[in-house]
């Protein structure tokens, strides 16, 4: 099977393959706009962490096409189950990135958005644990006669976890409408994919009896097309698909990481030439879809988004103390009331 690619690294579109896209110019532009906004927000977040405004942050630099292309293929009713690196997907889902980044500031574990209303689950740090949630949610939709689709995002390392296996198997057995979207960025912190698994990720789908496809993860159009097809397949009641988006982690695993210890410079350079935004910009420009005016208006938007994030995060207050106890249970138990009282009294005694 050959990897799905619509735009070559030097920006040439495979026009015949591209017919399947049927996207309008505004869509082509929107994809570009979202990738730029994502990159800016990502860079801004890294900067905020360096300045001590975020506790930690895992950059998605280099993975913009995989995230934007896939997320753009979803409908509003669809439900996304992210890992911890999907800021780009959150943006597409219309989440205020300030609310999202409160997770990384350490203001609140789920950030400040409502996962159910936003149809974008909370950040899942324990690797692969969100996959069975996506399956269960899709099983529920099917049972309810609802044609929505769920998408689980995860990394290459996540494919080693038992939860990946159990989720794929449940999805196949129950014909759940799930898209398993793997961002293979070649690294799991310091472990290269070669030491993670001995088979290509897309091939793992055959163990469950559904289709696995490999796409150029730095090609936003290929990621869009593969995801739209998988979503249509699921919507039609034909069950899950596994998509392996072959991309690369251009930054460190997280701001706490020291990638210099293990990530080869040459490898980074090799992938820099495959940058998802550069190639797409080249195509859009040559196709006459993107001009300077548009470019600078998007740049402006990026500045605004960065400013918005900064404004919302810098110096944001910690949660009030009683938030610690508010949501352990729907109704606070007498025991927790006592513990809350204890904390509040002690707090006052030192004011």
């Amino acid at each position: 099977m050959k990897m799905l690619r619509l735009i070559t690294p030097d920006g040439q579109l495979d026009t015949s393959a591209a017919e399947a896209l049927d996207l309008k110019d505004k869509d082509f532009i929107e994809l570009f706009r979202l990738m730029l906004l994502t990159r800016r927000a990502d860079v801004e977040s890294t900067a905020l962490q360096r300045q001590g405004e975020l506790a930690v942050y895992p950059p998605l630099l280099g993975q913009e096409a995989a995230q934007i292309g896939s997320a753009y293929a979803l409908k509003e009713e669809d439900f996304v189950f992210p890992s911890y690196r999907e800021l780009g997907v959150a943006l597409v889902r219309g989440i205020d990135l300030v609310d999202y980044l409160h997770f990384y500031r350490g203001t609140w574990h789920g950030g400040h958005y409502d996962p159910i209303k936003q149809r974008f689950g909370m950040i899942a740090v324990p690797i692969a644990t969100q996959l069975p949630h996506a399956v269960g949610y899709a099983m529920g939709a099917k049972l309810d006669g609802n044609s929505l689709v769920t998408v689980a995002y995860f990394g290459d390392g996540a494919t080693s976890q038992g939860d990946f296996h159990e989720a794929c198997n449940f999805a196949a057995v129950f014909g759940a409408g799930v898209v398993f979207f793997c961002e293979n960025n070649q690294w799991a912190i310091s472990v290269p994919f070669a030491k993670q698994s001995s088979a290509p990720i897309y091939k793992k789908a055959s163990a469950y009896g559904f289709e696995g496809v490999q796409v150029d993860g730095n090609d936003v159009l290929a990621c869009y097309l593969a995801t739209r097809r998988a979503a249509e397949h699921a919507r039609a009641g034909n069950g899950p698909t596994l998509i392996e988006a072959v991309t690369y982690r251009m930054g460190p695993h997280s701001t706490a990481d020291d990638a210099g210890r293990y990530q080869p410079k040459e490898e980074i350079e090799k992938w820099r030439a495959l940058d998802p935004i550069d190639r797409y910009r080249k195509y859009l420009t040559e196709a006459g879809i993107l001009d300077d005016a548009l470019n600078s208006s998007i740049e402006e938007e990026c500045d605004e988004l960065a400013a918005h994030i900064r404004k919302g995060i810098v110096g944001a207050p910690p949660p009030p103390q009683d938030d610690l106890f508010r949501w352990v249970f729907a109704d606070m138990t007498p025991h927790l009331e006592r513990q809350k009282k204890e904390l509040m009294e002690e707090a006052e005694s030192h004011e």
Partner: protein
Amino acid sequence: MSEFTMAQALNEALRSKLSKDDRVLVLGEDIGKLGGVFRVTDGLQDQFGEERVFDTPLAESGILGVSMGLAMYGYKPIAEIQFDGFVYPSFNQIVSHVAKHRYRSRGSAGIPLVVRIPFAGAIGAAEHHSESPEAYFAHTAGLKVVVPSTPLDAFDLLTQSIDDPDPVIFLEPKSRYWAKQSGEFGAGTLPIGKARVLREGDACTLISYGAMVTRCLETAEAAAEDGVEVGVVDLRSLVPLDIETVADAVAQTGRAIVVHEAPLTAGFGAEVAAQLMERVFLSLEAPVIRVTGYDTPYPPAKAEEYYLPTVDRILGAIDKVLAY
């Protein structure tokens, strides 16, 4: 006024909930056609169909994970773990997600999910079929831990657990599945979080839950024959813990013994003992002591009688606190 076993009472609770609320689902291994290895789900798939009562692949982490997803969608899944010793593969989903989801979502996405687990020993079962994991769950914030000891209470507590907006670990004492009782289903009104005083007694108070409650009642009978009146309190739920009721009873007797099958060290008995010391220290005539399983793996069937708290061991403990 009919007579029924705990297994039948649980089956009836599931049946009534499935008919009243079509968001209720029952899933697990062998709970469909087979009706569960203890027949607690017997006949439910026939009555409610394979969509609402279904067997899953053999994977507990998957069962808990998809149950969580189903709950997020708006269903009320009741997941069965076939035996106590097989809940551990799902521990990560329970501790890292199910227990924390309401909290991390600032209240917007609680997980109404009941995990039914046949638990504890005394049925001569093979290894891994007699574990008492309640302390693991009681120590995990965000979970309720409920343990019935009688058929009627099993019906009430399971019904309440299904109605509960939060995740409930529902531990079914398997040695009591065949215990009979007669009465009216749902007549009980005691909610989760309230302990029940089953027997008054001025000499000392026995505190327990699950199958050991019966042991305690037998012990109280035996003690009564020697003219010693001991009280018995059934906790019914470990989280929330009704320490008030327990403390009131112990404040009167000044002596307390906590009984459970689980190993002693860091078992739930330690929590009860510690809270009693904090609350009724000045009324205590003797230390609160624990009669529990030993700090060994659960032994083979032929040795479990040595391991489990017996009437004699509990009587011995009573002598000890009375002599103190």
